[in-house]
């Protein structure tokens, strides 16, 4: 997440104030700055394409309608909260039989895959497109609540406290979700022959 200069920050707050007072153009300016990030986040939860675009569009319209209710300091976090919840709702609605989110009893139970044989380390595979494809594939196999938390942390750079507020769960749950999702991605890489930095 890029740091803002004091000038940009004051301009940002001025836009928020104007948007809260009903200035549609100010809201458009604010939303346009996050449009792409919101889309990539939604796309990695519901899958890229029209569904993800609809999620973001609906979320932004909903954000505009409830702009008067925005009280926090981070407009970005507020938008991500709305988009994340919409995207998770969309995934749940797709299922024929809704499943209860499976939260682990203990993070010590997480299985860590072991490399079958010595392979390339991260420095070698990070530059390859294949590694990123493996990560994308592995993410798709992670339960969406865990995936959303991990993406909010590793891609968007939000703090655990912010993610807890955004997803309306305890901070311990956020901690667990991020850890499990990250280990799942790590395991997918290990299964492809990656031995880790120490390997």
């Amino acid at each position, binding site marked *: 997440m890029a740091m803002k200069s004091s000038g940009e920050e004051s301009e940002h707050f001025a836009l928020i104030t104007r948007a809260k007072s009903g200035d549609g*153009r100010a809201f458009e300016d604010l939303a346009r700055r996050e449009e792409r990030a919101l889309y990539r986040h939604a796309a990695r939860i519901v899958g890229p394409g029209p569904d993800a*675009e609809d999620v973001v569009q609906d979320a932004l319209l909903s954000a505009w309608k409830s702009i008067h209710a925005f009280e926090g300091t981070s407009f970005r976090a507020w938008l991500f909260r709305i988009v994340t919840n919409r995207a998770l709702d969309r995934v749940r609605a797709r299922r024929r039989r809704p499943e209860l989110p499976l939260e682990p009893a203990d993070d010590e139970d997480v299985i860590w895959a072991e490399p079958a044989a010595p392979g390339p380390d991260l420095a070698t595979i990070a530059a390859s497109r294949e590694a*990123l494809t493996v990560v994308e594939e592995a993410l798709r196999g992670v339960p969406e609540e865990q995936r959303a938390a991990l993406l909010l942390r590793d891609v968007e750079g939000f703090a655990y406290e912010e993610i807890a507020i955004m997803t309306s769960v305890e901070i311990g749950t956020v901690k667990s979700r991020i850890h499990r999702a990250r280990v799942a991605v790590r395991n997918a*890489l290990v299964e492809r022959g990656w031995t880790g*930095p120490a390997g």
Partner: protein
Amino acid sequence: MSSTPHVRAQLSAYLDAALATADRNAVEAHLASCTDCRARLAELRDTASLIGALPDLAPTRRLVPRLAPVPVWLAPLRTLATLASGVSVFLFIASALLANIGTLSAGSATTALNAPAAAPAASGGGVAAAPAPAGGLASASATTPRGAIQAPSATPQPNADTSKAFTTASAAPTAAEAARGATSVPNDAVSNGAGDRSSHEVANPGPATNPWVWLVLAIVTGAIALALHRRLRSA
């Protein structure tokens, strides 16, 4: 090997600086003596870096709703542009049809009209040329009655003269070419009673008589109407 239990479950939170001070100290103490947990921590750090390096994804359309008020003049302007496009299409078709009708009547009218030029070349004298315009008028009147009405001074001539003018005109290619220009406005040519002058005027038709001008105008106004329509719909 460390004597304390592994801290694998805490490694992600430790990596993200999300542990309370006491927990962080405990993890650090364990890491100092456990190579296995240090290796796991390094793996998680690199995994997080890879996730952060995933390629960006871009939407295919604008996702931010248009909330700024639409100018009041936009809707009337769209209607105006649509009408202008429709009228231009009509004018294009009309002018193209008029031009085609003129071309069809060329077969009879043009050859006769240009008889003054063709006849001398064929007969070798100015005597045969004199009655030709009259014959041309009679011939033109078959397809364009208005021409006949507008030329009351036209004197009917024997059929022999008319057919002679026709054959001589068709035999002279230069005359036929000159006549082609005159055919687009045969009425003018007839009413003026001067084939040479009228063919001169029609050789350079103005923009108002060129059908393609209307077509271009129709496309331009149509595109404007479409753009305005899309802007109004997205509002």
